[in-house]
């Protein structure tokens, strides 16, 4: 899906739960998060934590020097 969007001029960033899968599939931009399946944005009812993951993901779009495929590990501030 990300590849199709990029081909049509929409810049994408994917949250990834399995780093090994991201390495194999190679989405254009991916943020690997250290959370279990079912919890891609950390915890329910924790807006600040969810927002932090989204901010980190969106930041990947802003890197003018990034080259595809871009895979970055998310490091939560609260750890």
């Amino acid at each position: 899906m990300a590849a199709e969007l990029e081909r049509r001029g929409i810049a994408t960033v994917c949250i990834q739960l399995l780093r090994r899968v991201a390495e194999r599939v190679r989405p254009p931009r991916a943020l690997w998060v250290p959370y279990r399946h079912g919890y891609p944005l950390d915890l329910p009812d924790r807006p600040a934590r969810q927002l932090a993951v989204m901010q980190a993901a969106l930041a990947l779009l802003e890197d003018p020097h990034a080259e595809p495929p871009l895979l970055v590990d998310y490091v939560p501030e609260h750890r």
Partner: protein
Amino acid sequence: MGHASEFSLSTRLLLRGYRWRRVDPVPWTPLDKPLSACRLALVSSAGFVLPWQEPFDDGQRGGDVSFREIPADAAVSDLHETHRSDAFDHTGLGRDPNLAFPLERARELVAMGRIAGLTAHHLSFMGSITAPGRLVRDTAPQAAQRLVADGADIALLVPV
């Protein structure tokens, strides 16, 4: 932490033997304007539907490759998760759909001025698609066209 060890033996064996489709070459759209001028679309594979929409079909061989359009003004409390997989804990998604369909967080990003706005529609898929041929050939182009028509500049894809 997201790791294959979370899964049952059968799921781990499936993952180990699965022939992941490698994107090559990797398409790339550089951002040509600030994020604060961009319109964001959400794409989630958590299987959310609205009350008047058809649930995803867990009986389709190879997985249900259809998608649902979620209007930008939808109430998050109306999102109902219908993902078929029993490989993960669904409790969090039931409690707070923002966990994998972060519509309220996206609205907050707009209010903060971090992004310019949201597309009129966001897209909901159900993951666990083991035979993605129809998705790649048919559904992904249709879905992408929808977001192009909505004026999306950027998209955030959230798995589950």
